[in-house]
């Protein structure tokens, strides 16, 4: 059975802290791993990773894939209250479908 697991389940930090969110997967026919941010309703796209070891970066957010370890991390530096959200990891595998993890709920306190 295809599986995506995220940790931690939830995290509370203060503004300015750096956080690392984890995602591990076991799927057949891996194509890519995606990170989404879900604030109220729709997940919004952050990153898509296909190659191991190549960091993707967008402002204070960065992510990297480790295909050997079947995992990915999402880093957020200098966190702000606006980073408070649920961060979703999803794996694109055979069949045009994404399998999502359960998400990490991040709360950033002022």
């Amino acid at each position: 059975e295809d599986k995506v697991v995220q940790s931690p389940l939830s995290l509370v930090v203060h503004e300015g802290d750096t956080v690392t969110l984890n995602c591990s997967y076991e799927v057949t026919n891996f194509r890519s791993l995606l990170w989404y941010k879900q604030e109220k309703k729709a997940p919004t796209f952050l990153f898509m990773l296909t190659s191991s070891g190549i960091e993707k970066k967008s402002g204070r957010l960065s992510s990297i894939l480790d295909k050997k370890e079947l995992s990915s991390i999402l880093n957020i530096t200098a966190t702000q209250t606006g980073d408070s959200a649920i961060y979703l990891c999803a794996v694109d595998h055979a069949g045009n479908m994404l399998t999502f993890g359960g998400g990490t709920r991040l709360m950033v306190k002022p």
Partner: protein
Amino acid sequence: EPEVTQTPSHQVTQMGQEVILRCVPISNHLYFYWYRQILGQKVEFLVSFYNNEISEKSEIFDDQFSVERPDGSNFTLKIRSTKLEDSAMYFCASNSQGSGELFFGEGSRLTVL
């Protein structure tokens, strides 16, 4: 910026009633999807649709569910006879290449009483 739009944003229905959720994908996208998220649970794949036919469906997508692209812009999800456990947020999504980044709509919250 182009976006996926969904209607209604919230629908309340009685068990056993038929429900149609509507979506307008981004205009140049060719692949369309429905996902659902039961409150407090994971986002789950329901169905993918390309070239006017279903390309993949999950175990959740049983005979009570159907999808249709009735015209050049709308993409609908029909639940024929709703059950209590169908209560969830239903997300429509689309992309241009059938893999990778999905563009999600804001969701339609379905409450079955």
